[in-house]
């Protein structure tokens, strides 16, 4: 099976529902569509669960090479708290 994208799958599922709602299908066709639809909805639900939480910031080292480092929101938002450890103040670029 070729790689299915989230929007492709959603679009296909919507197409299936539309076809089923239009009616005039034999029970066999309905069932075939239903099975296909179940597969798609499963795929969609899985895609929603697949994502992992990762927030990174790109920083340049002395040689100008860009590297991704974890980014913590707290550091930025609590800046006024005066808890800066020094290297926070370094301009990233």
């Amino acid at each position: 099976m070729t790689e299915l994208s989230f929007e492709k799958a959603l679009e296909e599922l919507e197409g299936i529902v539309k076809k089923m709602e239009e009616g005039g299908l034999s029970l066999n066709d309905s069932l075939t569509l239903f099975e296909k639809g179940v597969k798609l909805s499963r795929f969609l639900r899985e895609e929603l669960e697949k994502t992992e939480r990762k927030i990174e910031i790109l920083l340049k080292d002395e040689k100008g090479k860009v590297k991704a480092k974890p980014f913590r929101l707290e550091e930025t938002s609590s800046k006024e708290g005066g808890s800066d450890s020094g290297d926070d103040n370094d301009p990233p670029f």
Partner: protein
Amino acid sequence: MSSTTKPEKVYSVREITRLIKLQLENLFPYLCVEGEISDFKRAHSGHIYFTLKDEASQLHAVMWRATAQQVAFELENGLQVICRGALKVYEVRGQYQLMVEAVEPKGKGSLQLAFEQLKEKLRKEGLFDPEIKKKLPLLPKKIGIVTSSKGAAIIDIIRTLERRFAKLNILIFPVKVQGEGAAEEIVEGIDYLSRLTDIDVIIIGRGGGSIEDLWAFNEEKVARAIFRSPIPIISAVGHEIDFTIADFVADIRASTPSGAAEIVIDKKDSFIARIESLEDKMSHCLRYSVQDQKQTVMNLIHNHVFQNFKLRVLNLSQSVDDLETRVKDSIKNMQQQMSEVKSNAFLLEEKAANIMRCMLQNFMAKWEKLSMELHNLSPLNILKKGYTLCWKNGRKHLIRRIEEITKQEKVTVSFYRGEFTCMVEGIDKDKFIESRIKKQ
């Protein structure tokens, strides 16, 4: 006469030009002149030459390269401007001209004009065309952000994103968003992120500010970087009322940074609700299909033309009910399966789904056979062609031969759809249908 008394002073051209230069330049070391630009020329050296004119007069003007580079907007013929500078005499040509040190458009700020000019230029080039806007992915796997790592914008974006979808993959390219070099950094950020293969969408932006603060997002190089990005870009600059060139080139404009976060991904709950609604509709349709099929079969069974097959039909009717229950159970199982999706139980579910499918297919085959049988048995097929059935005794008795009828008897004649009752007026027991057909 006087020429003899006082010898006439004869200047060389150089001398008089030098004198005029001293006088004039002394007189106008600084001045402002308003006029319309004409004969505009930009030399290879980068210096600019033009004529300021009004209805009556013209004044030559020159702007050196260093000054010219500072002008935000595009100087062009016909533009009404106010120039500041000094009057200079160019001795080689004996010309006086205004050496422009600063210029601004008349009636509006130069940034405003620069904005309008660039907007018009890029619009003509097609950078804003709606047809070339890229579609945003529904569920971006990784979101790139080009903004300052220190401002409120980044906090707003990330907080909003996490409220909508707790687990997201975000990559930030921190840049200066105002002042010297900001545009260059923004361009670098866009180019860098748009070259990464795993980024699905890029947000560029900053919080609100004055037109000068937002200026980097009005620069042509930023517009070009947005335009050449193969990855869709959302621009989120300033507040609702602030429009920048970046907003026009971007694939989507968000009114604020948190607005961009709302555009980039829908709430996880909305996704689930949408999928659920589709699942419900599907199940409903399938159930309806089952019901529909059952109704068709039942209609056949209950039709009075089936009197003579009563026993068989009773069996069929039971099978139909049985099948219906089983199909309904299968649907229920499938639904349960759908809602219990967990990525680690893949294999097991796959197996269950396979078994379910086999079962359902089995049911289907049986059912289809059943329908077929019923269909073949049915005299309805023949009735459809225009033939009729005759009954007597209030439709209790199907008349198969002429001997079964007596004169003055009431008979009912059934078409495929509809029937009528009539009185027998005459009987001819020996007439064959063939003779009637021949006569006609």
